[in-house]
């Protein structure tokens, strides 16, 4: 069997084998990336690089009255809590006064907010793992991340692989990486094909793996006819994941187009995982760097960062209470008007957001930066964690989505607007043909036109 090393022509290959005189054929599907103009967009110089998207989650929200910008519109003035993001003010939009609406359903504390923001619905049960709706990062990745090695990357900075909000329709949640070193190995280890490498040799072992996976997929499809409906749905999901794996291998057989901004970062050391502020910050910093480089090298175009869980267990070393416990037990200081122990967590949380934006903005691509061509949605679970309310949830976006979104704007909605307006707007900003998002009271068709370019 001959392997065509140029790999630009027809992809259909047929492997023949003999078994008791019968011919067995295993076919490879046609790869379509070469037929699409997007593929040529990866070539260097003058052609726009693809838009990217990321979500960034932190639990237990901010403090009402302290985070909202004091003015509305462009050139807004930060409230006291967001002031530490001032260096990025012109690239950040702030959205206030929007809520996750419950429609009478029980509130799963710290879970219903993210479910509405990312999936558009309140979960049918408190077990959010089985909310059937897909999350917007998956919807977005299915469009913009079709041809990257990884459809998306999920990370948890507190060491919990179940800490995640990303899920495909009808599927379990996409698990998070908890170790920066493991993510590095996955991204830049043996299977990484450097776009800027001088030469390229496709690996015959990868070829063989590819054909094995194809056969597995075919056989699975034949198996499906014997199954009940529920099992078939789960195997469909398996096949989708198998296809993504096949695509990863296909890309390993391709010579990638060079990318000027791509460089391999230093291999991180093994770091302890935990929920102490210092540990979370250290791991987040490593993840942020890896993700920025992953985007710059077009290994993926979508990421999801969980700084903490909704029930934020962030804590300062030596203290008995976590952030979440403080939000409930710290009494409001009558003189100050807020919970003094709770607000202490805001600076380290936002410092981490700043660190991510710094990494993204630090990757220069021509006269713009990686941050300019992408959109980061920074969201949380509560409007006021003390009471578990999901009114007036702080929402931020950073980055201009490749020019499709205006930045440096504070948008204050009419009170009671569903927070899904932001979710809808970000989908449109990255190029999805979405005209509505969400269900029941959280259903909206109203794009936030004030921020659309």
């Amino acid at each position: 069997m001959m392997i065509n090393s140029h790999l630009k022509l027809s992809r259909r290959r047929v492997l023949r084998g003999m078994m008791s005189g019968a011919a067995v054929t295993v076919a490879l599907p046609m790869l379509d990336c070469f037929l699409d103009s997007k593929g040529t967009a990866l070539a260097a110089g003058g052609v726009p690089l693809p838009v990217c998207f990321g979500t960034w989650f932190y639990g237990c929200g901010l403090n009402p009255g302290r985070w909202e910008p004091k003015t509305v519109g462009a050139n807004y003035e930060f409230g006291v809590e967001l002031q530490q993001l001032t260096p990025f003010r012109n690239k950040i939009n702030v959205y206030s006064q929007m809520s996750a609406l419950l429609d009478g359903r029980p509130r799963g504390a710290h879970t219903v907010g993210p479910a509405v923001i990312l999936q558009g619905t309140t979960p049918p049960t408190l077990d959010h793992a089985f909310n059937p709706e897909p999350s917007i990062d998956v919807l977005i990745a299915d469009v913009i991340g079709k041809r990257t090695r990884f459809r998306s990357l999920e990370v948890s900075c507190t060491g919990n692989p179940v800490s995640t909000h990303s899920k495909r329709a009808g599927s379990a949640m996409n698990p998070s990486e908890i170790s920066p070193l493991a993510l590095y190995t996955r991204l830049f280890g043996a299977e990484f094909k450097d776009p800027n490498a001088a030469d390229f040799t496709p690996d015959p072992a990868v070829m063989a793996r590819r054909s094995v996976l194809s056969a597995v997929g075919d056989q699975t499809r034949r198996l499906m006819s014997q199954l009940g409906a529920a099992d078939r749905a789960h195997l469909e999901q398996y096949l989708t994941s198998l296809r993504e794996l096949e695509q990863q291998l296909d890309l390993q057989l391709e010579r990638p187009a060079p990318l000027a901004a791509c460089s391999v970062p230093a291999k991180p050391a093994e770091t302890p995982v935990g929920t102490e502020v210092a540990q979370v910050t250290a791991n987040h910093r490593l993840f942020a760097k890896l993700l920025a480089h992953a985007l710059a090298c077009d290994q993926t175009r979508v990421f999801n960062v969980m700084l903490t869980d909704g029930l934020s267990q962030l804590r300062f070393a030596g203290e008995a209470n976590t952030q979440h416990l403080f939000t409930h037990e710290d009494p409001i200081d009558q003189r100050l008007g807020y919970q003094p122990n709770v607000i202490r967590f805001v600076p380290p949380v936002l410092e981490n957001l700043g660190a991510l934006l710094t990494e993204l903005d630090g990757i220069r691509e021509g006269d713009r930066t990686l941050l300019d061509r992408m959109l980061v949605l920074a969201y949380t679970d509560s409007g006021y964690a003390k009471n578990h309310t999901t009114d007036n949830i702080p929402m931020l976006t950073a980055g201009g989505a490749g020019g499709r979104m205006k930045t440096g704007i504070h948008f204050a909605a009419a009170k009671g607007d569903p927070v899904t307006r932001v979710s809808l707007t970000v989908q449109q900003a990255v190029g999805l043909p979405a005209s509505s998002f969400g269900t029941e009271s959280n259903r909206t068709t109203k794009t936030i036109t004030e921020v659309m370019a």
Partner: protein
Amino acid sequence: MINACAMIRSRRRHGLIALGAALLYISPPLQNAAAAAGKSFVVGYFYPATYYGDDTCPKGLNPLPDVFFKRDLKILGLPQADIDAMFDKDYNNQNGKPTTKWVSVAATRGNGRDNVYLHPTTVPDAHLMPAVGRFGYGFNLDGKGAASPDSYEDPQTHDKGVNNRLFRAIGCIPAYKGSPPPQPPLEAEYRWDSTRMAMGAWLITISGETLSRDGDVTVTFESSIDPATTQDANAHIQSDMTYRVLARPASRNVLHGVLKNGVVTTDPTTIVMNCDPYIQPTFEFREARLRLRLTPTGRLEGVLGGYQPWYPIYWSHAKVGYIDERGFGVDTPALYYALRSNADAYPDPKSGENTAISAAYMIEGVPAFIAHEGDADDAARLAPNTAHLCATLSQCAASLESALTRVLGSAEPLSPGAPPIARRLRPDQYRRVIADVFGPNVKIEGRFEPDVRENGLFAVGVGRIGVTSTGMEQYDAMARGVAAQVVDEAHRGTLIPCKPESATAADDACAAQFFAKAAPLLYRRPLTRDEFDQAVVLAGTAAQSLKSFYSGLEMSLAGMLESPQFLFRQEVAEPDRDHPGGYRLDAYSKASQLSFFLWNSGPDAKLMAAAQSGRLQTRSGLAAEVDRMLQSPRLEAGVRAFFADMLQFDLFDTLAKDAQIYPKWTAKVAQDAEEQTLRGIVDLLLVQRGDYRDIFTTRKTFLTPLLGSVYGVPVAQTGGAEQQPYEFPDGDPRAGLHAQASFVALHSHEGLSSPTLRGKALRELLLCEPVPAPPGNVNFATAQDTHNPNFKTMRARLTAHRTDPTCAGCHKLMDPMGLALENFDSDAGYRTAENGEPLDTSGELDGIEFTDAAGLGRALHDNPATGPCFVRRLYSYATGRPPARRDMPWIRYLEKGFAEDGYRAPDLMRRIATSENFYRVSAPPAMLASRGASGE
């Protein structure tokens, strides 16, 4: 000479309920059906049908023994004074027992010489007063209707001309007198109860195309080889017992009948039933008919009528002799005369005297199962007691609902099962299968994507998921890692049973040998032709392109290890031969179901062999395998896996304690804590075969020195880091699972304990009672006393949980238990005060009060939800689904059995594993619907 059943003492129960509008009861699903529908009953009572009315005995009742003995002796000629003296001294002697002298006098009172029982005519006819009056049970046997002399009107059907001369003869003997309803005749209870113990049970089966509307039916009246000896709590015959009927039973009468308005009436024919061998070996009825009514409570009530030989009736009394007379008050010679003179059919050709007497008998029956045993024909035949499984779920629900309202008898209820479901292997199962097939040295490198819990268990959640792309990446990496090790130089000698002709080329024969051995164990079933061919072909083509046989094999094996056939436990259904119309798991799926339940791994070679040979699909074969697996040391792995799932030990993976506050808590402590609990559970449940509920009260545990340090008890380091047996002293609050680190530390915060988390865990995990979620918009401002922000103890901080009505409703389910555990800090360290203030660890659980954790343990032990919760969890774990309404009869049966077994877990596991319900599949598999379709 034919002996007939003797008289029957009246029974202290109600007689026939007067027929009103007859209602046909929808049968519970577990009834007999030789045809499409059927019900089986065991005869609980059978006795002469006597009617008690004001006009039945207008001249009063026949005399009792003291009267008729004295009378006969007087006729004999004995002086009255002697008779009286004899009577006082001998008949009514000091002990209440008559002397033997008296007995012999009474027995020869006819002529002082001959036995009156053998020679009743030595005593003159005493002319028993007959039963007259309007009503008498039975049938118009002679067809003459009301013109028939001495006939009655049946009180149920109001047929006139009922022929029942037996009733006429005995109906005014006090012992046979019918009593006013609801009193039964006393005689029937005693006589039948004694008879019943010594004979095979009588069984009546009514079957037909349907029993829910009028039509033809078949009534089978037959005998079992099992006696109906079990009595229930009310000393009535136990319903729903199982009776075996041989291919050629001692008695069988198959009658044609008609069901009309809820009553079955059979055509006249001869009915012969064998009875007890001593009193009455045979009952024979000519021109006999049955009238049977199915009551709303499921019992059978009816009348049998026909011509019965009269002498055997006499003889069944006479044979017992004096006892019958004195004990039952039946004047035996007088009975002879009465029966003889009332006989009204079948004249003896020589003497012309009638040999048979018209009779009617009451029948009462309760539902029963019939197991047909005997020759091979029988075994292959449909077992009538489980004839029709519910064809639709709604049918099941309707019939099971009615079954639910009855006291569950000893027989296991049917569970309709659920549709087949594929369950993804859990990481430990994946590891075990690889270790079982390729040995324990093969390392698995990679991270499994997390499982999801549903209904509290991973074992249920694995049926709800596919594989995410991240997960697929990892499975691929793990598969390649395992495959690479299998073919490497260190392993290929042992794991690959052949050498290729050339190491640099394909060798299909050797590849086929390898896959023939390994693949069925990996897939837990034989491969299809397609699967096997593909494995070999892929190995070959990869070997060609990579110029290496072993690399080719590696590629193909890796493909298998990331295929759904390996990653998922697929359930394959087949038609259930024992219950036509239903489905069950095929032999290999059954083997997996069993082995993942008991051993948390794929089937071993012996179990696979039992599946292959078909033995596993037989009751005895299954029981043998189950017992083998329960004896095996591998059972421990299954029990550990179950408890790790139920107690949510996966939380250990993300458990963190603040190092400054709790410096003693390290990762090793967490490991030891988990092992302490699991080892203790295994010891209690498997080694000691103890009561499950004792997990809350047992003071025996296993500690490492590190755990001793945490708990504050001395544990010598001379044993190394091994777990050593340790027993807490009596009354120590550190006894029981709820006091162990694996519980209190797991359900705490990083920096402090949490009564609410602990109480919630006890309530939800161990009592199976879900706690509602907190309400939205909880305003904690009102809940906190801002004037005293420094609460010294947790109990004080949680005051609002108890006092605020919006909080208390749910928190009272959790906090009282959790506060009892405040002796245990977040790292399980023992303390008696918090911030200088002594701890108050009192509380209550569902009404039982306690003062400390040990008391809480006793309250948990005694809580009625504890045992059933374990049953439901184990049921869910084994079946992979949460308990559904349709499963509740079986689950309740298991709960009952668990209690009866003394809450011994292995016995419960055995009950589940040997039950047909465990392997039953409800809906036809999709393959039947799309038969013929293949490929994409």
